[in-house]
């Protein structure tokens, strides 16, 4: 009985912030401006399939790179002395305290034609390179913004790996490579799948970053959705349909991934 009373605030919260908005999205997605039921919004998604696939492609690449970078970084942090671990985590999280628009502006000033990087390379008569307004810059922006979401779950499982287990593996003949594949990765499985989800989901619905770093030719599905609500192509019905389709795709990919996930991480 007691537990029921305690769950009331949570249920109210869920209704206000999850159920009602979701209901509205579904309602808008299947209605016309005059409120009649229709599939036309969903069908209209056809025109944006290329953008949708680009979003998925970019976010898959960004997620993989986050994983590749995040694994060694998290492992190194987890093997530091207790006190230093906190400091290093702080450094990882610190950029998240700055507004993400500012962070992305900072990247613009670094990557621009006459930005810091090109000017520095210019000192050695190298460049200038075309670093911005391309797909690479957008993926870089995603990685930069979302890599903490990879490092944190990885760190939290890796810090629980007892050093004596690593020593036991060494004792039984494991070199560095085997320690990674037979001990560290299998024991980090939970963190790897959490990290992949927490990076992939915001990446696939990224907006603004793509517009700022992609130069207008690399817009993602998030940008298109945003412009349906705030831009000049105002059409919340189409925007809702897009959001709904994106959500279904994400859920499908994630459940597929979870199916494989249980065996995949063993290697």
């Amino acid at each position, binding site marked *: 009985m007691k537990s029921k009373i305690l769950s009331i605030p949570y249920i109210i919260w869920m209704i206000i912030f999850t159920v009602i908005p979701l209901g509205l999205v579904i309602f808008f997605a299947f209605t016309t401006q005059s409120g009649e039921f229709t599939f036309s919004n969903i069908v209209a998604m056809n025109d944006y399939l290329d953008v949708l696939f680009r979003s998925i492609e970019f976010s898959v690449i960004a997620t993989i790179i986050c994983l590749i970078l995040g694994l060694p970084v998290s492992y190194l942090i987890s093997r530091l002395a207790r006190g230093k671990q906190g400091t290093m985590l702080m450094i990882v999280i610190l950029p998240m305290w700055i507004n993400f628009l500012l962070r992305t502006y900072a990247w613009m000033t670094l990557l621009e034609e006459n930005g810091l990087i090109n000017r520095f390379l210019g000192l050695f008569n190298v460049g200038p390179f075309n670093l911005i307004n391309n797909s690479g810059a957008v993926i870089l922006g995603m990685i930069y913004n979302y890599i903490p979401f990879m490092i944190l779950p990885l760190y939290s499982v890796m810090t629980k790996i*007892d050093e*004596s*287990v690593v*020593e*036991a*593996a*060494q*004792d*039984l*003949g*494991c*070199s560095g490579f*085997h320690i990674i594949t*037979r*001990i560290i990765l*299998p*024991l980090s*499985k939970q963190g790897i799948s959490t990290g992949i989800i927490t990076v992939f989901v915001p990446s696939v619905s990224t907006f603004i970053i793509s517009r700022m770093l992609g130069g207008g030719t690399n817009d993602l599905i998030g940008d298109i959705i945003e412009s349906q609500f705030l831009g000049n192509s105002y059409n919340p019905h189409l925007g809702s349909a897009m959001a709904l389709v994106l959500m279904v795709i994400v859920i499908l990919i994630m459940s597929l991934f979870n199916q494989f996930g249980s065996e995949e991480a063993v290697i």
Partner: protein
Amino acid sequence: MENIIISLKNAIVDFDGEQILKNINLDIIDKQFVTLLGPSGCGKTTTLRIIGGFQQMKSGSLYFNNKDITKLPPHKRQVNTVFQKYALFPHLNIYDNIAFGLKIKRLSDKEIKSRVQQTLELVNLIGFEKRSVQSLSGGQQQRVAIARALVNRPKVLLLDEPLGALDLKLRKGMQIELKNIQQELEITFIYVTHDQEEALTMSDTVVVMNDGIIQQIGTPIDIYNEPKNAFVADFIGDSNIIDGIMRKDFLVDFAGNSFTCVDSGFEKDELVDVVIRPEDIKIVPQAQGKLTGVVESVIFKGVHYEMMVESSGYEWKIQSTLHENVGSLIGMNIEPMDIHIMHKMEDKL
């Protein structure tokens, strides 16, 4: 000549500026059962970790068959370890835990299977192959840890209190098992324990440590009968340790009396520790005793009684199959050969 398989020379280890191992020199003879014995925190695990390759020394060197392996990483050493805290792999079942080292060595599946089976039998864990580590009791986990190391048939096996979590009966059984395995497979065992009885019954050689220093190395009989100092005497079995003065060769004063003894070679009037085993004090009628005392307590210990007796300012521990009543006056006699004289330890603990 016996072959020395492992030799540790002038090993010094510091933790946070504190010296934990103070110049350890230790030769391990091939195929022997060697025990490191000492109280908690004396540096047994640290010594073992040096041999396993997990602990760097501040200075000193380690030889394996006369080859310097001080800098050799652990996975290249022909040594396996049974860790004090088991350190089993939580993501693998019991079979895969034990097979781990053999898989790394790329043995055939058939060979791995038969060796794991054989080892499971040795440690009495047949039928546990598919169980998870988490589902095992402490004692069962400990036996998996033993099996996981043993299955590799290393030249040298390091065991860090491998029977600590077992009950007395199982422990006695495993002691015999381990000793048999060691002799059958002709593996050198370096065995850490703080249980002196375990050390005495299993070992070819006992190394008594205290406070990062080796106090004595010898056969169990040597260590028991000829302890080098009062610490060893006290740690190996119970002892009465009494202050005495060596008057001349074969004559010592203690407890207000002069006693003939069998020790010589001390300075005249040197202050010494006199060590007497509780079972070596004979209880006689008061009038016939060289010393007299009052019985303060009697405890039944199974095989014998243990009495605390107050006499000439000391508490004497006496073990006897017969017992006196609390409060009664008794006489006590000690044979010359049961009086062990030792130099006072340089640094009192």
